[in-house]
C-alpha cells in the first residue's frame, strides 16, 4: 500500500516533533532528576548549573509536546480520542506533574528572596521532574503494548489496562533515558572540570541503567506485548536499526569515558532518537494496535494536505528561530578570555 504524500509528511512531522521533544524537553526533565540527586561537595554548583542550562530553553522545548498533541488530533482524531479516554488517569497525573514542574521552576528562578522557599520550590520542581517522565513512559508503553481497548467508548476499566509491568518498565525506561540525556548534555554546559566530571560519571551510570532497563522492557514485551515484539524482531528494517542503536549507545559510553563530550552528545542523542524510531517502525502502520492505523484513523486528505502545508510553512519560521535560541544559549562563547573558568565570570559575559 502506498502512502499518500501528505499522510507520509504528517506522520514524519509527528515523529520528528516527538523526537525533538524527547531530546530537548526530555532532557529538561532529566535535569530536574539530577537536581533531586545532587550530592557531594558540589551539590549547590550542580543545581546552579542545571538551572542555568534549563532557564532559557525549557518553555520552548515544552512546546514540542503541544505540537505533538496538536498534530495527533488534527491528523488522527479517532486515535487522539481513544488515547484520551483510555489513558485519562495517567494523562491527568502527567498534567499535574507538568504544571508543578514548570510553575515550581519559574517560581524558584523568579521568586527571589529567602533560601528556604527557594529550596522548597526546587524540591517540588525536581520531584515533579522525576514523576512526569515515568507517566509519559507509562502512556507510551500502554499505546505500544496494545493496552488501549478495542472500543474505548465502552470501556469500564480505567486503571488496569495501564497498570501492567510492561507499562511501568517503559515508564522507568523513559526516566532513565531522560536522565541520561541530561547528564550527557550537562557535561558541555560548564568549564569547571570537577563539575563536568560529576556529570560525566552520572552519565555513565545512567547509560548503564538505560541498557539494563532496555533489557527488562524487551523481556516483558516478549511476554506481554506480542504485537510490538513481533514488530521489533520480524521486520527487515528493525535489525539494522537495533544494531545501529547498540553501536551508538556503546560509542556514547566510550566517548564519555574518553572525555570526548561533544561526540558523546551526538551519539547519545542519536541513540535515544533511534530507540524512539525503533518503537515507531515496529508499530508501523498502527497508531493503536490492532484497530487504528495511520490509514483508517487519518483525517480526510484535504485536512492532511493543509496541515502538511502549515507544518512546512511553520517549520520555516520555527526551525531558524529555535536554532537561534540554542545558538545564543547553548554554544560556547567564541572569544572567551582565558580566565573564563570561573562560573561567576562566565555568567556575567
Amino acid at each position, binding site marked *: 500500500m502506498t502512502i499518500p504524500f501528505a499522510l507520509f509528511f504528517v506522520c514524519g512531522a509527528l515523529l520528528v516533533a516527538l523526537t525533538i521533544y524527547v531530546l530537548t524537553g526530555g532532557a529538561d526533565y532529566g535535569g530536574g532528576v539530577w537536581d533531586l540527586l545532587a550530592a557531594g561537595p558540589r551539590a549547590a554548583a550542580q543545581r546552579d548549573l542545571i538551572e542555568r542550562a534549563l532557564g*532559557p530553553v525549557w518553555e520552548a522545548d515544552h512546546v514540542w509536546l503541544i505540537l505533538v498533541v496538536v498534530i495527533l488530533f488534527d491528523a488522527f482524531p479517532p486515535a487522539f480520542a481513544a488515547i484520551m*479516554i483510555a489513558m485519562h488517569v495517567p494523562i491527568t497525573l502527567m498534567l*499535574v506533574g507538568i*504544571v508543578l514542574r514548570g510553575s515550581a521552576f519559574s517560581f524558584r528562578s523568579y521568586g527571589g528572596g529567602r533560601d528556604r522557599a527557594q529550596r522548597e520550590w526546587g524540591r517540588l520542581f525536581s520531584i515533579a521532574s522525576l514523576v512526569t517522565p515515568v507517566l509519559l513512559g507509562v502512556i507510551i508503553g500502554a499505546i505500544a503494548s496494545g493496552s488501549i481497548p478495542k472500543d474505548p467508548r465502552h470501556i469500564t476499566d480505567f486503571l488496569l489496562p495501564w497498570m501492567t509491568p510492561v507499562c511501568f518498565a517503559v515508564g522507568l525506561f523513559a526516566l532513565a533515558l531522560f536522565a541520561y540525556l541530561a547528564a550527557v548534555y550537562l557535561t558541555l554546559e560548564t568549564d569547571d572540570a570537577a563539575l563536568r566530571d560529576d556529570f560525566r560519571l552520572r552519565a555513565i551510570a545512567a547509560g548503564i541503567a538505560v541498557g539494563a532497563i532496555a533489557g527488562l522492557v524487551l523481556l516483558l514485551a516478549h511476554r506481554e506485548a506480542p504485537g510490538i515484539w513481533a514488530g521489533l524482531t520480524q521486520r527487515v528494517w528493525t535489525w539494522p536499526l537495533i544494531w545501529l542503536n547498540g553501536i551508538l549507545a556503546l560509542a556514547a559510553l566510550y566517548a564519555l569515558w574518553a572525555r570526548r563530550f561533544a561526540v558523546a552528545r551526538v551519539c547519545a542523542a542519536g541513540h535515544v532518537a533511534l530507540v524512539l524510531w525503533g518503537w515507531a517502525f515496529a508499530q508501523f502502520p498502527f497508531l493503536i494496535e490492532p484497530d487504528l492505523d495511520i490509514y483508517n484513523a487519518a483525517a480526510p486528505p484535504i485536512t492532511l494536505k493543509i496541515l502538511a502545508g502549515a507544518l512546512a510553512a511553520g517549520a520555516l519560521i520555527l526551525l531558524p528561530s529555535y536554532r537561534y535560541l540554542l545558538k545564543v*544559549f547553548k554554544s560556547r562563547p567564541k572569544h572567551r578570555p582565558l580566565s573564563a573558568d570561573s562560573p561567576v565570570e562566565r555568567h556575567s559575559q
Partner: protein
Amino acid sequence: MPNILAARSQMAMSLAFHIIFSCIGIAMPLLMVVAEWLHRRTGDQVYLLLARRWATGTAIMFAVGAVSGTVLSFELGLLWPHFMKWSGAIIGMPFSLEGFAFFTEAIFLGIYLYGWDRVAPRAHLVAGFIVAFSGMISGVFVVIANSWMNTPVGFRLVNGLPVDIDPIASLTNPAALHETVHMTIAAYAATGFVVAGIHAAMWLRDRGNLFHQRAIAIAFAIGAIAAVLQPLSGDASARAVARLQPLKMAAFEGLFKGGPHAPLAIGGIPDVKDRKLDYAIELPSMLSIMTGHNPDAVIRGLDSFPERNWPAPMIAVHLAFQIMVGAGFAMAGLAMWGALLIVRRRTIFDSIWLLRTMVAAAPLGLIAVEAGWVVTEVGRQPWIIYGVMRTADALTPMPGLTVTFVLFSALYLFLGVTVVYLLWRQVILSPTRAEVPVQAAAL
C-alpha cells in the same frame, strides 16, 4: 456531582484560570517592550528597571499560562473526546497555527528574559516585539477555534457526521472576526488597567516615585486606548450574535418575549419558570434600536425557541453579560477622564481622584474578561458545537470526574495564591533607593 456537571465545572475552572494568564501574557510583553524602547530612546534608567521588573512578572505569568494551556489542550480530549474526534479534522488548523505562534513566543521570550547580556541591544528589543506580536497571534488562533464552536462551518452534515470538510473555512467562520477583535482588545484593556491600578496604589503611598509614575503612564495609556475601542467592538459583536445566534442574544438580555420595540434590560434576574425578568430597569425599544437601528426592528425572544435549547443556567449568562458591559463602560469612562486631563493639563498625576479611581478600577478588566467568557461559553450551551453536537454527547465515559475537578481546582488555587504573592514581592513593591539611580530620580 453528576459527571457532566463535574466536567463542565472543570473546563470552566481551567479556562477561567488560564484566561487571566493568557491575557496578561498577551499584553504584558507589549508594556515591557514599550518600557525598554523608551529606555533606549531617552536613556532613562527607570524605564530599564521597569522593563526588567515587568519581564520578571511576564516570566512568571507566562510559565503558569504555558502549563495551564497545556492542561487545556489535553482537557479538550480528556473531557470531551467525542467532540475532538468529530471536529479535530476541521478545527485542527487554528490549533496547529496557534502551536507555531506559541512556539515563536516561547523561543523569543527565552531570548528576551535570559539574553539581556547575550544578544545586541537592538536584537533584544526585536525579540521583545516578536514575543508581543506572536503572543497576540497565538490568542487570536485559540479564539478562532472557539468562535467555530459558536458558528460551525466548513463541513456538510450527513447522518450526524461531517463530510466535505474544508479546514480553511473554519478559520474564517462568521464569528471569528468579532470574537478575536473583542478578545484581543480585552486582553490589552484588562492588563493595562490591572497594572496601572496596582502601580497607582503604590504611587499614592509614595508620591513622586518615578518608577510607579512611568509604569502608570505606559500601562494606563495602553489600557485606556483599548478601553475606549472596546464598546465599539462590543456593539459590533452584539449585533453579530443577534444575527448569528439570536437565542444566545435573547439569553444575554433575558428577553423572554420577542417582538418589535424590544427593551434593553439593565440588571434584573431572569425567572425561567415564570418566563419573566425580575427587578430590571428596561429602556423601551432600546434593544431594537441598538440591534436593528430601528425601534420597529423585531427581536426574537426566548419564546421563539424550544426550551431544551436554552442556555443553562440562564441567570449566569444574563448577569455575566450585565457585568461585562457595565465594567466595559466604566473602564471606557475612566479612560475618557484620563484623556480629558491630558488634553487640559498635560498630566494625570495632579488628579488624586483619577489615580484613586484607577486603583478601584484595577480588577474591572479581568472581571469583564471572566464575565465575557461566561457570556460566550455558557451562552453557547447546551451545545458544544452550536446546533450540531450537545455538550452532554461529547462527554468522556470516564467516571468520577468530580475527583479531577477537585484536584485541578486545588492545584490552581495553590498556584494562584503563590503567583499573587510572588508578583507582590518581585514586581510591584517600590524599588529600593539603590535600584533607582540618582540622576533618574532627579528628573
